[in-house]
């Protein structure tokens, strides 16, 4: 409940202040929100269904490269290019999801990693298409249909990202609070029992992985016109690591937590990288600290703190499946 309020308020504030923010901050914020979206997409798998993935970079990379190739080779208008990139990624995600969900636990994680590594290898193998280690540069931000071009500028593109993030958040919330989401909660808590109840848990897992890859690829697709270039590093396992860190530290199973985690990290990264080169270590250490000491993440801690302070009784109306942060 609170998550939605926080997001809504933040979105409004950011959109309102966008025109007056310095360009550098706006750029940073855009990147941060893209990563927040990326992290939220993983939360569907990790936080709500307990499907740990070490290869979510694949979703990001797929979205980024698909959009890049589509924009360059077909000259599609920007919004179409992004949507098409996502569509391509979703199609590719289906067999990936099908294979990975054959296993659970470590095997599942390894399979996701394998696909990401495979993607990385494929990029080098098919150099002519993908530019190999040089990646693809000079990606345009073409005007949209009907001559829409407000998003070609920094502020306009920022609005696009905010819109996509908010829309995705809304979509995820609807999913989570639906009967489908209730099933995910059951799978998370006791998959054997769910099968014994008659649920085809494999089908649900495939579905949630495809949705997660879809939203992750949306983040990648948004990144491409933002940065103007794509490179194989997008598929690298450390990217998967970073987004997993964002989810866990932000607060798995809360949707808003990972968004905050993503934003927080990008901001912190830019601040820290000016001061010291050690920031990746800091992140790794923070990650481990949270896993060991505060598995509910930043958002979980905040919620706990706020609840402890408020005397009013909590009555969460509605049919939300219990928070996964326990």
């Amino acid at each position, binding site marked *: 409940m609170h998550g939605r309020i926080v997001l809504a308020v933040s979105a409004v504030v950011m959109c309102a202040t966008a025109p007056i923010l310095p360009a550098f901050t706006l750029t940073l914020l855009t990147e941060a929100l893209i990563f927040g979206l990326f992290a939220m997409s993983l939360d569907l798998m990790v936080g709500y269904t307990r499907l740990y993935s070490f290869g979510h970079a694949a979703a990001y990379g797929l979205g980024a490269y698909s959009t890049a190739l589509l924009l360059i080779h077909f000259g599609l208008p920007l919004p179409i290019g992004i949507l098409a990139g996502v569509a391509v990624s979703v199609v590719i995600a289906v067999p990936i999801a099908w294979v990975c969900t054959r296993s*659970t636990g*470590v095997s599942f994680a390894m399979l996701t990693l394998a696909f990401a590594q495979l993607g990385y290898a494929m990029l080098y193998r098919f150099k002519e298409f993908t530019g190999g280690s040089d990646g693809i540069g000079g990606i345009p931000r073409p005007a949209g249909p009907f001559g829409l071009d407000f998003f070609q500028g920094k502020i306009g593109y920022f609005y696009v990202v905010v819109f996509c993030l908010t829309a995705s958040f809304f979509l995820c919330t609807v999913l989570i609070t639906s009967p489908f989401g209730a099933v995910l909660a059951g799978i998370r808590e006791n998959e054997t029992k769910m099968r014994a109840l008659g649920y085809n848990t494999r089908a649900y897992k495939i579905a949630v992985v495809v949705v997660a890859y879809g939203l992750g690829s949306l983040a990648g697709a948004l990144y491409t016109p933002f940065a103007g270039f794509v490179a194989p590093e997008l598929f690298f*396992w450390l990217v998967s690591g970073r987004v997993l860190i964002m989810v866990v530290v932000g607060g798995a199973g809360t949707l808003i937590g990972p968004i905050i985690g993503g934003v927080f990290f990008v901001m912190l990264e830019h601040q820290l990288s000016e001061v010291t080169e050690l920031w990746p270590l800091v992140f790794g250490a923070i990650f481990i600290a949270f*896993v060991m000491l505060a598995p509910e993440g930043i958002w979980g801690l905040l919620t706990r703190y706020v609840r402890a302070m408020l005397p009013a009784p909590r009555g969460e109306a509605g049919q939300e499946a219990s928070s996964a942060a326990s």
Partner: protein
Amino acid sequence: MNVAGFLVAQSLNALSQAAILFFIACGLTLIFGIMRIINFAHGSLFMLGAYVGYSTVAWTGSFWPSLIIAPLVVGMIGGTFEKLLLARLYARRDSGAYLMVTFGLAIILAETIRLTWGPQPLSIPIPDRLRGIVLISNQPFPIYRLFLIGMGSAAAVLTWQFLERTRAGLLVRAVSQNAEMVHALGTDVNAVRTGVFALGCAMAALGGVLSAPLMTAFLGMGSNVIIDGFVIVIIGGMGSFLGSIIGSVLVGFVQVFGSYYFEDLALAMMYLLMLAILIVRPGGMLGKEE
């Protein structure tokens, strides 16, 4: 070129590959046997071994000390990590936490390596005494690779002897069967775990040092090798020492002959192998861990 000679040469190649893989798979297997977890950081530890080896060579001017120093350093790091962090997770029956923490370690190691040694691959020269080639069945074959086969075999034999013939080895085997019972008999099971974890890390590091003269020390060694190790452990059977030997040999052959005949797929070979195995046996061997 005659077929027999070719087969012999490639088979030896495969065995040398298997030797390196064994150093990783053995540690991974031992750790899984004792702790029922896959140490995801194993690949990064292998990588760390290679880089520490590089520095030792640079520092001492000789290859040989690195064979001792790298495993020692990395083994200690591993043991400390286990004692300080992993040990605390036993009470929490949460396999997710183990995955995360070892993953976190993998990340920290990878980033530390990049910071300390930079992003460029570093090469270690093959020591003088092991340079050159010998003729086997009229095929030239690098001496260094024979050396690897020797080291791998020696390690396998030593580990086997350790497990079967020594009291410490017996303890290790007992703990992997039934930790509670061993604990009830008065042994410090935690110490055994720390020791085995450290040993596994040390072996991985040794593998890294040995592989560095051939493939250089580079970022990204870790993520490839962990998948190899994982595949071997699945093939060989989780926690089975003999299985790790068989698996290493099998994978070594698949990698060498596979990349010869399917050159295009060389990079993707291992991932495809793993996909193939997990498609065929998705839960079978790993059912226990859940």
